[in-house]
């Protein structure tokens, strides 16, 4: 086992492929600009920025920063990645990787692309100005996407693409000011917990084709359309989420949507109903929620085949709907430190 210091003059892919590097070795990246694609071909390598300014720069010519194809247990830590045509970090096949604390900016496709792989940890990365920030794709399962920030992305913040992308966790992530959904989750048995999804154009949360997913403790605010768009999913548990001030409905339940449970959510001040259940929804249980001052009604059920109990259904008081200034989202951005990147500043090495 060895710790190997690497400089921008080194061809890291060639180094990894050589006999100088063995599985389990640590590659310490010196500060500087690395104009290259790093293709990782050995298991359990740890690729770590030594300081705070190891920058992989594709100069809008190269496709991908890091390629982890068919390998296992690689760590990419604290590296800045910018100006690639396709992806910042591309994981395909293999799995068990740890993608931690990287800053990814200016990627024309996906910040972190997780393709046909499993058991990966994507933790505390900051991703902006990409198409999607993090996308799970082609039967990616058992991945943990935790405490990342996605902002100013053209499409979604965090996404599991299809019904085959299952058993994944999205926890404590922040998605602000993205063009699609903050969190778009398709598939079975995915967990969404304590995510903050603010000012996303299409909506905060989209849960779609699949079953048995769980969404707890998420904050969905100021979306440019519906707050939560839940469709064609069976047995969703949706509890203690805070859904407020979205441009249309707080929660829309549509498609063939059965046996969901909506429990202890607070849904208020949305510019359409708190919750709308579509004509093909059946046997959903809506109970102990607080629905307050949504315009024009709190609950709209187009199927009459769902069950309700113990909800607080409170209309607006005169002049209750707050008039907020147009800088609300900017305020959120600054408070969370994404505007100046200060969130993890105190955790960086000197």
């Amino acid at each position: 086992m060895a710790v190997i210091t690497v400089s921008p003059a080194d061809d890291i892919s060639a180094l990894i492929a050589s006999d100088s590097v063995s599985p389990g070795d640590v590659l310490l990246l010196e500060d500087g600009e690395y104009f290259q694609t790093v293709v990782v071909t050995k298991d359990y390598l740890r690729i770590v920025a030594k300081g705070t300014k190891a920058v992989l720069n594709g100069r809008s010519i190269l496709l991908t920063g890091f390629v982890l194809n068919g390998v296992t247990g690689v760590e990419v830590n604290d590296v800045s990645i910018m100006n690639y045509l396709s992806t910042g970090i591309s994981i395909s096949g293999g799995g068990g990787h740890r993608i931690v604390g990287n800053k990814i900016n200016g990627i024309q496709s996906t910040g972190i692309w997780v393709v046909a792989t499993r058991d990966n940890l994507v933790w505390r990365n900051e991703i902006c100005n990409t198409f999607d920030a993090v996308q799970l794709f082609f039967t990616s399962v058992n991945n943990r996407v935790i405490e990342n920030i996605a902002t100013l992305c053209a499409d979604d913040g965090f996404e599991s693409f299809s019904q085959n992308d299952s058993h994944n966790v999205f926890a404590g992530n922040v998605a602000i000011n993205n063009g699609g959904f903050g969190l778009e989750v398709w598939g079975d048995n995915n967990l969404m917990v304590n995510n903050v999804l603010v000012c996303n154009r299409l909506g905060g949360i989209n849960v779609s084709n699949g079953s048995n997913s769980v969404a707890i403790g998420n904050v969905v605010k100021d979306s440019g359309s519906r707050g939560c768009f839940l469709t064609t999913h069976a047995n969703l548990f949706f509890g203690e989420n805070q859904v407020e001030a979205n441009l249309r409905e707080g929660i829309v339940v549509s498609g063939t949507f059965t046996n969901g449970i909506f429990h202890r959510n607070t849904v208020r001040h949305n510019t359409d109903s708190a919750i709308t259940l579509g004509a093909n929804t059946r046997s959903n249980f809506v109970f102990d929620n607080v629905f307050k001052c949504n315009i024009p009604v709190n609950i709209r059920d187009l199927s009459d085949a769902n069950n309700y109990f113990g909800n607080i259904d409170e209309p607006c008081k005169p002049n209750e709907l707050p008039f907020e200034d147009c800088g609300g989202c900017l305020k959120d951005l600054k408070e969370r430190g994404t505007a100046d990147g200060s969130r993890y500043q105190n955790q960086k090495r000197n």
Partner: protein
Amino acid sequence: MDLGTKIRREIERLERLIADSEAMMDQVPNHLRPYQEKVLELHKDHLSKLKLMLGE
């Protein structure tokens, strides 16, 4: 959005990306070209899988 629409959108994006990348391959320095080609191959593989998903 249904799955078919999502897949078609991804296919369109990937096709454009692959075409752009192939067109600018001569700008990639020689020593980096094998890695660029490797990534391009991966993208083409994903593209063919997407088309398979769509039933094309």
